[in-house]
């Protein structure tokens, strides 16, 4: 066993023993605790937990590589701005009001504010979106195990599936809040240590955010020599429009993610919910401002070490990842020397190969994990980064699986299938949903449709097209009604989902069609779906009857954070259904 493998096992072993110990200590049995910790989690801890839920394999493992290698460098900023800017929307437009409303889940809010039809569509959208998201995490777990356990990718994913299942089932939310805090700590250390080390090694400046400047300037020169656009060069035309739409989809998607929103209910009250959002973004920003520096440092090192090197003389890290099947070189011009120049790339056949960089094909998802090896950092650091990547993938997966489980157990099983179900049976139904979701996600972990960040971006697009408009309108526009919201979510989410199904590779080698709506890629289409949702919800609401006077008063009251009579009565279940939803909106 190599040093790197040994240290990876040690780091993963120690960190996971810690998480499982904490989860076990705070295990919960009743339904309430399983989904939402019963209040009382401090804002700082809640913020760190949100950070861990948030920073998935997409942020940790995949994003830096996508930024540095999928585009010239600059346009990857869409991921950075999109996945942080959404918090501003969340903190200012959504979190405080949902906390005041006081219902457990997003479908609960949608069902109460609108009607049962809207709730059911919201539940389906939540489940589909969360599944897509979990699929990305499975791929992340697969990459880590393939490289560091030197097992087959399929086996790597299966090991991950088993771990995730036990994790989500044992913990429940309360356990997970505190394990998430521990996970955040591990993954942020794992991310920052190599960044600081490489920055001082390459530039002599310890702080990567400053060393970043010198390296991007050098990359500009290197890329110009290789015949590709400069690293920092701006873009225009369709590429600019797509960057704009992707940023919008990711931002508004953030504000519609069930596993993030549910965390605001673990805050003690409205005030704590605001502070949770602040701490969450602060913790997230630590990683997000560092990610582009990691990407740039790695790209610089890769060009430096590979371009012009004899094919027979590749460095050890390259050989390790080549054995895992995640990086390769085709000596197109057969001169025995690696060339990363654009002109050395083989012609696309028939589709361009993702990750093609001259004669090199690099799986973008390995960049962060390989970074410490590429920079020649010691084995414990390599192991630490692998442990961090696993924590990121598993923590997000478990948070999402809980969202799926609660949506299925409460909204589908209890409400639609078996209203007499006992608490124990509901928890069991939730666990079965978790198992089913893991199996579907596992399939896409073995047959990834795209790089992790792209799969997760699609999940965000689905969330934004389905939920963002009806949540925001539900809070800020009293006139929005059940028929409008149902129609809006159906059109917006339906359009986005169909677009994704037809333009993303799900089975076989290629997607069904090219992007058929103005050439917008599947990752960014959620922004368009969201606009449709807004328009339809507003127009249909205006054409139909306004919500009842009691409902409008309830919406009025959630705007004031203090105690108010109607919200309290509603939470206690003392408001008559027919007064709230009118006669026709009555629940069965």
């Amino acid at each position, binding site marked *: 066993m190599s040093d790197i493998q040994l240290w990876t096992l040690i780091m993963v072993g120690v960190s996971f023993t810690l998480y499982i110990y904490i989860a076990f200590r705070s295990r919960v049995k009743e339904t309430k605790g399983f989904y939402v910790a019963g209040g009382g989690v401090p804002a700082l801890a809640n913020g760190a937990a949100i950070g861990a839920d948030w920073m998935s394999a997409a942020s940790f493992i995949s994003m830096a590589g996508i930024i540095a290698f999928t585009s010239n460098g600059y346009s990857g900023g869409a991921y950075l701005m999109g996945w942080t*800017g959404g918090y501003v929307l969340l*903190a200012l437009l959504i979190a405080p009001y949902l906390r005041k409303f006081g219902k457990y889940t997003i479908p609960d809010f949608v069902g109460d504010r609108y009607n049962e039809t809207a709730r059911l569509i919201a539940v389906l959208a939540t489940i589909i979106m969360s599944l897509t998201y979990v699929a990305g995490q499975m791929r992340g777990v697969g990459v880590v195990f393939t490289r560091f356990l030197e097992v087959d990718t399929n086996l790597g994913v299966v090991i991950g599936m088993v771990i995730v299942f036990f994790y989500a089932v044992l913990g429940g939310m309360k356990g997970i809040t505190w394990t998430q805090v521990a996970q955040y700590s591990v993954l942020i250390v794992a991310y920052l240590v190599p960044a600081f080390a490489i920055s001082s090694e390459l530039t002599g400046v310890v702080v990567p955010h400053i060393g970043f400047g010198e390296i991007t300037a050098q990359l500009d020169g290197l890329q110009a020599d290789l015949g590709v656009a400069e690293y920092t060069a701006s873009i225009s035309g369709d590429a600019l429009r797509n960057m704009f739409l992707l940023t919008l989809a990711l931002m508004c998607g953030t504000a519609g993610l069930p596993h993030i929103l549910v965390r605001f209910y673990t805050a003690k009250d409205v005030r704590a919910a605001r502070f949770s959002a*602040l701490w969450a973004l602060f913790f997230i920003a630590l990683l997000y401002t560092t990610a582009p520096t990691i990407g740039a440092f790695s790209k610089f090192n890769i060009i430096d070490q590979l371009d012009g090197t004899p094919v027979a003389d590749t460095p050890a890290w390259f050989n390790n990842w080549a054995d895992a099947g995640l990086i390769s070189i085709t000596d197109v011009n057969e001169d025995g020397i690696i060339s990363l120049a654009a002109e050395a790339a083989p012609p696309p056949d028939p589709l361009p190969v993702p990750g093609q960089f001259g004669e090199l094909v690099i799986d973008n998802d390995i960049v962060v994990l390989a970074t410490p090896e590429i920079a020649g950092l010691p084995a414990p650091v390599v192991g630490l980064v692998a442990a961090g990547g696993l924590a990121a993938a598993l923590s997000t997966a478990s948070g999402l699986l809980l969202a799926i489980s609660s949506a299925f157990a409460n909204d589908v099983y209890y409400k639609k299938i078996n209203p007499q179900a006992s608490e124990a049976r509901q928890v069991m139904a939730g666990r079965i949903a978790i198992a089913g979701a893991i199996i579907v996600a596992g399939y896409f972990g073995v047959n990834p449709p795209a790089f992790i960040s792209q799969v997760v971006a699609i999940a965000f697009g689905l969330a934004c097209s389905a939920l963002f408009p009806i949540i925001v309108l539900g809070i800020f526009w009293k006139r929005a009604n059940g028929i409008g919201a149902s129609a809006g979510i159906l059109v917006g989410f339906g359009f986005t989902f169909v677009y994704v199904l037809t333009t993303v590779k799900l089975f076989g080698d290629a997607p069904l069609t090219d992007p058929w709506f103005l050439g917008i890629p599947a990752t960014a289409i959620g922004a368009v779906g969201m606009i449709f949702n807004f328009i339809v919800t507003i127009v249909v609401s205006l054409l139909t009857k306004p919500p009842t006077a009691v409902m409008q008063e309830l919406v009025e009251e959630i705007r004031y954070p203090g105690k108010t009579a109607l919200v309290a009565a509603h939470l206690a279940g003392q408001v008559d259904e027919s007064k709230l939803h009118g006669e026709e909106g009555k629940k069965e």
Partner: protein
Amino acid sequence: MDDAARKAYWRSNVRIVTVLLVIWALVSYGAGILLADWLNQWSLIDMPLGFWFAQQGSIITFVLLIAVYVWYMDRLDKRYGITEYETEVRHS
């Protein structure tokens, strides 16, 4: 809170949210995307300014925006005498 106080509270809330969201959009969609090309004529820590906003500056601004919001709302709550908050959470 009586009706007039509620209206005033909500107006202040909407005003601060609007101001902060305008800055939010100007920094990300403006400086980071639509105006990046133009801003790139200046540089900061060796980086073209538009590029810096897209990959560093916007994120830092977002944290500051939420900090201002949290601070402002806290003060607003105090001014309107909100000291007790709704703490209930329930399933429907």
